[in-house]
């Protein structure tokens, strides 16, 4: 399992608008992507921070979705006026859900 982590600086309002966009615009398409295994959105409202984590079956599907992931997260952040702090990729070494 692999993960792409989008780190965003968000106001509570930006967070909620971003949530809508991800849910309504991105998820339907994302779910049909090869190797897509799930999405987790984490918020620290007090610190003004949002993490969006997408999970991928293998390194191949992580790489294949990298360009679209970058572009679409950039566009989403721009839409809500948030700033993307980082875009990182990880290997999941333990997964117990």
């Amino acid at each position: 399992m692999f993960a792409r982590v989008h780190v965003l600086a968000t106001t509570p309002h930006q967070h909620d608008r971003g949530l809508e966009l991800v849910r309504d615009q991105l998820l339907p398409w994302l779910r049909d992507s090869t190797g897509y295994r799930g999405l987790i959105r984490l918020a620290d409202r007090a610190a003004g921070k949002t993490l969006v984590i997408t999970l991928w079956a293998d390194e191949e599907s992580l790489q294949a979705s990298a360009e679209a992931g970058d572009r679409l997260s950039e566009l989403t952040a721009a839409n809500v006026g948030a700033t993307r702090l980082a875009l990182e990729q990880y290997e999941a070494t333990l997964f117990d859900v």
Partner: protein
Amino acid sequence: MSTDFVLGDDFARVLTETTQALVCVLDSGGRILLFNDACERTTGYKRGEVIGRDAREAVIPPEESEAFADVLAYIWKTGLSSPQVGHWKTKDGERRLIAWSNKLMPAGEDRPSYLVTTGIDLSDSAAEAEGALGGDVEAKLVEISRLAQEQRALRRVATLVASEATPERVFTAVSEESARVLEVNASAVFRYEGDDTATVVGRHDRDGVGVFQVGDRILADDNTAIGRARDSALPARIQDYYAIDTDVARTMRNVGYRSTVAAPIFVGGVPWGAVAIAAAERLPPDSEARLMAFCELVSLAVASAQAREDLQSSRARIVKAGDEQRRRLERNLHDGAQQRLVSLALTLRLARTKLGSGPETLEPLLAGAAEELGKALEELRELARGLHPAALTEQGLGPALQTLAERLPVEVQVGALDARMSDHVEATAYYICSEALTNVTKHAQATRAEVSFAREGDVLRFEISDDGRGGADPRAGSGILGLRDRAEAAGGTLFVISPPGRGTVVTGTLPLSDSA
């Protein structure tokens, strides 16, 4: 002690009366002086009817009368014996064939000379001898019943083949029936494995020896009958395992087999396997010919099973190819046009949020959106063309391929073909050609390719050739197999000639009448 006493007159009389041989005594004129019991039995005459009469009037058939006179004259003149074979006629007029010995008894003091003749009736054994030369009804009946049994056995196997029984069942049946018909202890069907081995695919043995089991892979080199049958493409035999010393011979000897005959099974003109029989004694010389009749049935069974199997796997491949194409199409739509449209939707939303800002902010956003939309459209068009090019429907096969050829990175010459054919034929030909051309651009490393057509009667003949590296293997991957499946599904044919380093030629035919 002397035995002379037994050789008196009484002895001669008893002997004459009891012997199974004919004993007849003639005087110098050919008159019958003595006519024993055996003569009576053979001719049906009583002694009283013939004694004193000239033999030529009684028992010598008129057609041999002259020859008889000559023999008599010779014997009386020379005094020498003259063994003869001649006929006697019976009271009923029948002829009996009799082998005669004779001895002239010289005249004594009180009697004239006379001729003793003894004969053995050959008629019955002569009839037998004639029968052996082709006239014996019994032997013929046996032969006919043997042939009938053989025909029944072959028919049983043929029925099995015709009912599309599995080859395994046919192999077993052939083993059983050939063992029964050829009256041997063991029989087996072997499949050659392309090296010097063969696999037992069917077997039968009466005596439970079980040298081979189905599935055993055994050596089939030129020390074996099945190996020789493969190499010579003719029936082969090992006449006597006791006369040779190989592993196979030892194995066979150990279980009591002396002799083996194997006949090759051909499928599609090449040796596929063999039917072999083994027996404790030397096999008769007609074994090879009789075994061949079974081989032909095995060949039919294998060929028809292969055809069924080919058809089945071809169907499976066509279905699988269809599924794969749909999946590819879905992927292409998702990763291409759909992604662009998602991105476009976000871009337009972003533009809406920027309506208040100046054109320097909006302009690049809208330009990006338009470009994205353009790309999405182009990708959709490409996919649609892959499904079924509009040019094919509107203008036909030739122009559609021309259009396709212009977009390929390799120089492709498309032969003229203006005539329209049925949708089905045009679509099949188009896909075969476009797939073959895709292979050319992907794998062949070619600089140019050529597509040509010819209509011959009810058939469209096509050929796609390139100047690439060749060496395409019809078995590897499904590319070429997929092409053949398409052609064959439409009732056509497809062949690929691809010698390494000398380009690839795909040729084939499609029936123009829309029967498929």
